[in-house]
């Protein structure tokens, strides 16, 4: 399997570059994961769109295999560990020591075990967007001017908040506050589980929806327009819950889609 690993390179140098942030991150590998590459392809596209727009130096791996996280929750501890090792070895073979994962589940799975010993550091995509905001480089010349006024709240994905140990609330608020015309509103119990994880959404829909009910109630109280959910599973779970709620125009999106939405040319280069 390791023989046919290939890397897709970044296509072209962008006209505008977030100098400080791109220098800070250097060259890294983006691990996209099963859900983003096969189902939530909109988030996959916007993630790459943002990376290209700000001029990050990245590559993606052609032959990613499942990270093992869903297998670990399904009672397959041994297979899950094997999946992680195979991925880490492939990544090491390609010469990368920094992984950016766009899915917190993949991120926390890859960062466990031997990653530290192999000298591989794993970060989540939102940490990249956060550093753009923190370095004052999030405003891009290609953005719509003025930006539409939006009230934004967020859900902290469990595997990002506690799995990768990222301060989600600080990151969300910094990103939103760095953009003009955006109002940040904090949700009560922002770090409480949405009910999608651990294979529960796949195996016990009723239980998963009952856990979600409380989340949706808290989100409705914020009266926000958009809920940021930096995990494809949480995005799907919360968005579905919001759509099922009567008179609710709130929608859930990933931070990369939220940021990409601010660009004039977001659908350029996407042909039929």
């Amino acid at each position, binding site marked *: 399997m390791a023989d046919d690993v290939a890397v897709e390179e970044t296509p072209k140098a962008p006209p505008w570059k977030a100098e400080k942030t791109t220098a800070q991150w250097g060259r890294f590998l983006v691990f996209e994961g099963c859900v983003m590459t*096969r189902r939530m392809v909109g988030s996959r*596209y916007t993630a790459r769109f943002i990376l290209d727009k700000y001029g990050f130096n990245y590559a993606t791996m052609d032959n990613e295999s499942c990270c093992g996280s869903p297998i670990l929750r*399904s*009672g397959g501890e041994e297979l899950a560990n094997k999946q992680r090792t195979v991925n880490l070895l492939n990544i090491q073979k390609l010469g990368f020591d920094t992984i950016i994962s766009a899915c917190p589940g993949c991120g926390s799975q890859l960062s466990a075990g031997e990653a530290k010993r192999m000298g591989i550091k794993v970060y989540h995509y939102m940490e990249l967007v956060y550093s753009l905001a923190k370095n004052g480089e999030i405003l891009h010349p290609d953005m719509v001017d003025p930006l539409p*006024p939006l009230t934004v709240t967020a859900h902290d994905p469990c595997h990002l908040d506690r799995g990768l140990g990222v301060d989600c609330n600080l990151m969300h608020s910094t990103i939103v506050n760095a953009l003009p015309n955006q109002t940040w509103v904090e949700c009560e119990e922002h770090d409480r589980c949405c009910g999608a994880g651990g294979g529960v959404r796949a195996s016990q829909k009723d239980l998963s929806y009952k856990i979600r009910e409380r989340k949706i109630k808290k989100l409705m109280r914020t009266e926000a327009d958009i809920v940021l959910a930096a995990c494809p599973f949480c995005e799907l779970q919360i968005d579905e819950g919001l759509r099922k709620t009567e008179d609710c125009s709130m929608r859930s999106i990933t931070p990369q889609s939220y940021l990409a*939405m601010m660009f004039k040319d977001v659908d350029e280069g996407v042909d039929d």
Partner: protein
Amino acid sequence: MALEFFNSINVYAAVSFIVAFVPIIIMLWASKRGFDSSILCMDCQQCVADCPVRSVLKDAYMGPKGIQVYARVGHNEKADELMLFSCTSCMACVNACPRGLNVKHDMDHFRAILASVNLGQMAAHKHLIHMVENFNNTLDEVPLKKPNIHDQKKNIKKMLDGYGKIVGSQMNKEGDRPKGVA
């Protein structure tokens, strides 16, 4: 002289410190590295109080601590009855535990033990394992190949259809944009 030394209060203090705390420190270190941590549990139930699954299922789900107790002593049927496979792996229990035990890791580990004696796993779990064993991903029955983003552009175009419509990345239906977006 030697007797005097061993009788000194400082030596007693040092020995009792080592006997009392060193095993705890070693076990805490071990639990951080993934060994079964439940032996260090002091039964404070903080993990149970914070568990979102417990808050829905109430007594039907004993929470991380309760399930551990049965699983640890090999009462697999009881652990299964208490719905070990209902844990969402949210790690609220890990966050809550004053001893910093990785309770969630133990849940994953006990799931594997239960699965090995054919208990607990539901059809969805078996399906996921089957998918990864045979196709190396959890979703599509296409072995080893990651879909190329260029082949997905048609779908993406539907989702992106102009500024302000990338709402819900999975599908874009007309009128699904949030209020306030042009």
